């Protein structure tokens, strides 16, 4: 029992280490040149060599993403609140939102560049556009799937719509909200990098684009790893907050 628990705790690291070893072995074994597919070791060397620029680019990408993500939390929650609590708004807005969400964001970036120029604007907006939809949908679902009996119980007492929303609707949709944040934060990174690659002058996306065009594949891969690590860290942060604040929704996984 104790052993299996330890294995569970360390399993992500074990899998990571095994993947790196396998990767290194394949690259070394088949003699693949680094401008095609660099080995973890070469990528690691790039990290040390380009520590400064990588850190600077990562920081830039990070806060652009956070600005876009913050915007998508605000807009996503408000929109979700609106379409989750009013059937009219749901019917009226949902098809349009689905259509909008289906538009490839890579196609939107050039338009944003025309509007806002090269720089921060397109990055922030792309991160926002790509990540608000899951937040909206999840908040709306949480609010719209309220048990009718519970609503009756409260309405009989003279509860206003607002009371029902605040006392029941919002707490109930919190687990959905945190679930959506975990998806949205990873999407937001995708959006920022996308904008930086097509129309950026800084950030990880721009760095990878430049490195790629100079055939410096290990550095481009180092950029990829950086993005992955940042997204993973943010995901874990939201998981942690989720467990702390809405433990009641995860009771199945608790040990008691």
């Amino acid at each position: 029992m104790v052993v299996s628990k330890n294995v569970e705790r360390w399993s992500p690291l074990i899998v990571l280490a095994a993947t790196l070893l396998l990767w290194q072995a394949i690259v070394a074994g088949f003699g693949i040149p680094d401008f095609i597919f660099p080995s973890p070791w070469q990528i690691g060397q790039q990290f040390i060599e380009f520590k400064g620029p990588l850190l600077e680019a990562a920081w830039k990408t990070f806060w652009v993403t956070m600005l876009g993500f913050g915007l998508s939390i605000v807009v996503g929650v408000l929109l979700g609140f609106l379409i989750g609590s009013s059937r009219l708004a749901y019917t009226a807005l949902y098809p349009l939102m689905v259509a909008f969400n289906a538009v490839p964001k890579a196609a939107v970036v050039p338009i944003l560049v025309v509007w806002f120029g090269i720089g921060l604007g397109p990055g922030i907006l792309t991160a926002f556009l790509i990540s608000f939809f899951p937040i909206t949908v999840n908040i709306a679902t949480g609010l719209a799937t309220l048990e009718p009996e519970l609503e009756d119980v409260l309405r009989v007492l003279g509860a206003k719509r607002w009371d029902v929303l605040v006392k029941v609707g919002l707490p109930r949709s919190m687990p959905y909200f945190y679930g959506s944040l975990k998806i949205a934060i990873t999407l937001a990174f995708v959006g920022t990098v996308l904008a930086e690659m097509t129309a950026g002058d800084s950030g990880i996306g721009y760095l990878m684009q430049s490195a790629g065009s100079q055939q410096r594949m290990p550095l481009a891969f180092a950029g990829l790893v950086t993005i992955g690590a940042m997204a993973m860290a943010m995901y874990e942060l939201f998981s942690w907050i989720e467990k702390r604040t809405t433990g009641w929704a995860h009771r199945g996984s608790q040990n008691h």
Partner: protein
Amino acid sequence: MAFVDFDKVWLAYNDELLAQGQFAVEDISLKVNEGEFIAIVGPSGCGKSTFMKLATGLRRPSKGTVVIDGKEVTGPLKITGMAFQAPSLLPWRTTVQNVMLPLEIVEPYRSQYKSKKKEFEAKARALLQSVGLAGYEDKFPWQLSGGMQQRASICRALVHEPKMLLLDEPFGALDAFTREELWCALRDLHAAQKFNVILVTHDLRESVFLADTVYCMSKSPGRFVVKREIDLPRPRDLEVTYTPKFTDIVHELRGHIGAMRKTGVSVPQ
């Protein structure tokens, strides 16, 4: 004067159904005295839950009038408490916090909530203890068994001291032993607090054991077809359910339901 007075009440759920003459309940008349415990039995889908919505003011009748406590019902009635088959407790609140929920909403408690919170909490705890939930007040609902959750749900319906308690198949999802325990809990609460109860159920034994009067409802159209006064003396012990008299009443009601099921389909509209 009767406490609850339904006078020839008809309800169609929307205008379209009204135009077609499709009513969920038809021509319902009943009078309930203050403190009386009535039960409504009938096959599923016969409009029992519709009746509940009328009695709470969540729905207004298409025809006829509903008068409760001397006033015509025009909107949600704050003097009622409700409980359903699903306990529907909020999982992020402890049991005692769940029971206190109505006090955060209904006047006059709402405006006093901040200043009298301690007092209200003591009251909620006392109520929980009275139904045998002592020691579980600070547990979360999902840590309780189904029967305990249902007890808490009934406490939530009663905490604001309603004059009328509406129960929609509250024990339907429980096992037979737990159900009988809860019958007794409800019987004792009713005896102590003398509120009105309208119990909707499809369990005939339950209705006969608990109620002063049992109404049988037919299906499509949803009408009251039988009114049966239960003249078993109170307080009633569970033992009463094994007496011939009790069994005879249950049998009699069963006969009415059976007859309705056979003929119910061919009743001319």
